């Protein structure tokens, strides 16, 4: 297993990435042909994604040793270094397995006449995939940044696919801006990490002995840079704008995959290059993560646009991931390695789960949009009868993201809560009291996610169609269904065999923390701490639920009858029911607006009682815009205006500037 297979895995993954690029270029041969680009090239891209996932899986086998290579690319003195180890293998596995589902779906999804020409879009799409894989494989700061920027740029072009709409252009600009602010943080972080040696390879950074203050500076910069990409509050503002603007497969890629690349970067820097650190790193990350999770969940609950809702839900989930990372850092600083491994495992499995179910849900919204042309929750409803497949698969995704057993979202949340349950053992007088309360936030967030998903699913798929046109909605094509089914299958499998996921991430916790959680007795049993302390079995729970449902069904039929009478809905005898009397998206979010009122910046227009045609309108914005970003942008604007005074447009003035500069430099030299 050792030598040959390991080297092959690295070579194979590089070859597959190159194949993605070739595929993208091939699309330009017939850029306007949907048959060629979408129906032919995208399925091949999905196969390549499976290959990438396979290469990643090889890196996660027991005997694998990290493989490195130097590519004949890059600058003469700064060649590209690549490295495949367990951590990058895991994220390749994530990228490939979720990416395969998205590509298959995209093959059926893209249609001619929607913005950018299909060939161009195919190029951007595969470039985006390839650059994410290259970020994961990069082993020096130079290549990392090149791949990182390629990722940001290719996704920017995908976001502004429909660039004729001004809002989409604005969303794209905001995304690009925040991506660069974040990239600046990462660049500075690498600048600190090289520690004066000017060696940009990760190997050198790993060995560099940084002073504690510099290490902390690097950590904070990394948290800022990767946090901006991952959507941590308050750097999350681009996310709810950019995700809805992009076509659904692109939203799925950004939310399901790109945010995970940010998680990867954070793990690589904080655990691998910086070897963890003092406890406040952990507490900071934990606090930011929990705050983000809560904030995202609350805002998701009041959204009226289905893709914005999912974008806020991504913020929530990434918050949970960072909370897990923070808890692991905290425990590691007190040398509680087993607990650190548990929290890190929870964060990693949650990343994987989120890639599956969030991609699934974003793609499902794509199918809904194609079938109905609607994105606003207020004009949907009852689609379970017109799009049964999409509805059933979206139900799996919704239940999974709500963290309900026996699906996959529950597995990671359970692990995270188990980790929190052990935190009173932290040998620090106050942390051992404060940190356990984080569990309450995790469970509140999970329960709010349930609320959000009942709203999401209930308003889109259940009830009666809120518009007449919805009754003509067509079910999704078979490629779209295949993509959705693949992701839903992943949600079920991780939920049923949680120990397999734990085994897989065990390689990473072994590499980064030096400990792995206790193995369960079977692939479907988890006993991460001790066998008599906490246990969970996805398969048995599934079996139990299915068995009871089947037995009850058969018994009721046998003992009584199965007669059904179809009647109009009763609704307490009210005869003049219309679909408009169902809860709208605003209505369903009302308790949240009431409970968390001060969190929102709300503008409401209430109709007067005598109004013949009452209109109710509520607009919800974030305080961050008005308290932080708009003042910041005004400041930048004003400064820029003051600076323009220097630019008179007269040649003589500019010559004077040069002259003065020269004199100043001369004075300084002398």
């Amino acid at each position, binding site marked *: 297993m050792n030598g040959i297979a390991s080297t092959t895995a690295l070579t194979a993954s590089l070859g597959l990435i190159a194949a993605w690029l070739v595929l993208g270029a091939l699309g330009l041969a017939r850029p306007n042909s949907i048959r060629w680009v979408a129906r032919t090239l995208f399925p091949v891209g999905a196969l390549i994604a499976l290959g990438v996932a396979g290469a990643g899986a090889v890196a996660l086998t027991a005997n694998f040793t990290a493989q490195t290579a130097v590519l004949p690319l890059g600058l003469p003195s700064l060649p590209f270094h690549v490295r495949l180890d367990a951590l990058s293998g895991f994220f390749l596995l994530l990228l490939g397995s979720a990416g395969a589902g998205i590509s298959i779906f995209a093959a059926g999804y893209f249609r001619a006449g929607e913005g950018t020409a299909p060939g161009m879009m195919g190029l951007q799409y595969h470039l985006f995939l390839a650059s994410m894989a290259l970020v994961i494989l990069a082993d020096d700061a130079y290549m990392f940044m090149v791949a990182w920027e390629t990722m940001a740029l290719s996704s920017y072009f995908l976001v502004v696919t429909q660039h004729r709409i001004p809002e989409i252009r604005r969303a794209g600009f905001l995304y690009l801006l925040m991506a660069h602010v974040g990239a600046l943080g990462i660049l500075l972080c690498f600048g600190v990490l090289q520690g004066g040696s000017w060696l940009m390879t990760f190997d050198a950074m790993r060995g560099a002995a940084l002073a504690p203050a510099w290490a902390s500076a690097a950590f904070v910069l990394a948290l800022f840079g990767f946090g901006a990409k991952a959507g941590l509050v308050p750097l999350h503002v681009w996310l709810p704008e950019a995700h809805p603007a992009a076509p659904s497969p692109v939203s799925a890629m950004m939310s399901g995959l790109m945010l995970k690349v940010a998680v990867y970067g954070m793990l690589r820097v904080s655990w691998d290059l910086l070897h963890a650190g003092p406890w406040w790193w952990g507490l900071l990350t934990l606090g930011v993560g929990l705050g983000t999770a809560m904030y995202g969940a609350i805002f998701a609950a009041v959204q009226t646009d289905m893709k914005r809702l999912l974008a806020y839900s991504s913020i929530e989930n990434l918050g949970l991931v960072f909370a897990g990372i923070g808890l692991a850092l905290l425990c590691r600083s007190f040398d509680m390695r087993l607990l650190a491994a548990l929290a890190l495992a929870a964060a990693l499995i949650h990343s994987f789960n989120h890639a599956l179910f969030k991609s699934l849900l974003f793609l499902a919204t794509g199918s809904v949009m194609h079938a109905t042309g609607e994105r606003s929750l207020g004009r949907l409803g009852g689609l379970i009868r017109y799009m049964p497949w999409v509805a059933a698969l979206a139900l799996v995704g919704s239940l999974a993201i709500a963290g309900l057993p026996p699906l996959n979202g529950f597995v990671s949340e359970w692990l995270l809560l188990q980790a929190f349950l052990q935190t*009173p053992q932290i040998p620090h007088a106050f942390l051992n009291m404060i940190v356990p309360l984080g569990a*309450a936030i995790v469970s509140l967030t999970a329960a709010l996610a349930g609320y959000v998903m009942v709203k999401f699913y209930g308003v889109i798929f259940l009830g009666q169609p809120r518009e007449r046109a919805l009754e003509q909605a067509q079910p999704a094509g078979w490629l779209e269904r295949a993509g959705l089914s693949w992701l839903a299958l992943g949600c079920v499998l991780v939920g049923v065999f949680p120990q397999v996921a734990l085994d897989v991430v065990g390689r990473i916790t072994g590499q980064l923390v030096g400990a792995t959680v206790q193995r369960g007795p079977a692939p479907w049993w988890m006993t991460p701490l001790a066998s008599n302390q906490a246990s969970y079995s996805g398969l048995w729970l599934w079996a*139990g639920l299915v068995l009871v449902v089947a037995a009850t069904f058969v018994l009721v039929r046998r003992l009584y009858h199965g007669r*059904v009478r179809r009647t109009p809905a009763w609704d307490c005898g009210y005869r003049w029911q219309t679909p408009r009397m169902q809860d709208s998206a605003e209505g369903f979010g009302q308790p949240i607006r009431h409970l968390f009122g001060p969190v929102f910046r709300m503008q409401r227009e209430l109709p007067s009682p005598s109004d013949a045609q009452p209109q109710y309108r509520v607009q919800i914005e974030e305080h961050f815009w008005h308290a932080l970003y708009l003042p910041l942008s005004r400041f930048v604007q004003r400064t820029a205006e003051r600076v323009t005074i220097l630019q008179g447009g007269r040649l003589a003035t500019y010559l004077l500037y040069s002259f003065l500069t020269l004199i100043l430099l001369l004075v300084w030299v002398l």
Partner: protein
Amino acid sequence: MGPVSATAYAWQLGECLLAIALAPLFAGWVGQCRAWLQNRSAPPLWQPYRVLRKLFHKDAALATHASWLFRLAPYAVFATMVVAAAIVPSVTTELPLARVADAIALVGVFATGRVFMSLAAMDVGTAFGSMGARREMMIGFLTEPALLMVLFSAFLAFGSTALPRVVEVVLRQPHIMLHPSLFFAAVAFVMVLLAENARLPVDNPTTHLELTMIHESMTLEYSGRHLALIEWAAWLKLFNYACIGFTLFMPWGIALHGAGPGLLALAIGALAAKLAVAGAALALLESVTAKLRLFRAPEFLTMAFLLAVLGLLVHLLLEV
């Protein structure tokens, strides 16, 4: 996991069936106590069984545009409660399936039932259905953190989240129950139990006023066998919650691993006695409290949460 004998599975099945069979009786007992306390003539103890029989015999009337989810939900909700009953030790700790889910996973199982119920309520698309779903989910996300904090402070004292293990720990070292943190946790747990089971003061199980309903408004469109299953599931949920409370705060009487038939009979007797007392107490509690306005319910549940946190802090400050 050691080898598990066939008798253990027999006990597991027996305990589960016992819960399914006893749950309506417990509900009947609570109803009877309530009637007595309110000077009404009480319905017979087996009234819930009669209700079930009547409903199972009736045709199920389905709204014309109800989907498969609406028909699946009663079975799914019932299944979650039956599985929960298999996990909670009510009579014996010799439950091979109790390891399938510890207490935290149990909270998740209850949440699954709640989400299915809410989705089904939204399926027909009536005003009351979606109103009930929204309220139920609101109460749900408020109770879950409180319940989790209760479990936290309980398990800090007992050192395990596996419920059968908790019973064993307490029965071997009874002085653990003297921890003051458990007192706070117990009070918080009772508050959570009231909210989760749609009891006063959060919801009124016997209300006929649609606008104040939470749980009932989700079941309005159900009839026949579907309604029977939902009612049964609700009774089973109350029964399960009562048994979780017994497990955490008064586990005496539960037969330990390897107990003979005599002890098991005794355990059933003890369970019956505990249920009788708990049911009477619940009826008393419900008779002396008034229903809260819906937006007062968060205050009630925040109080439960704070009590549980207080228990946690008391444990960390005084008991470590």
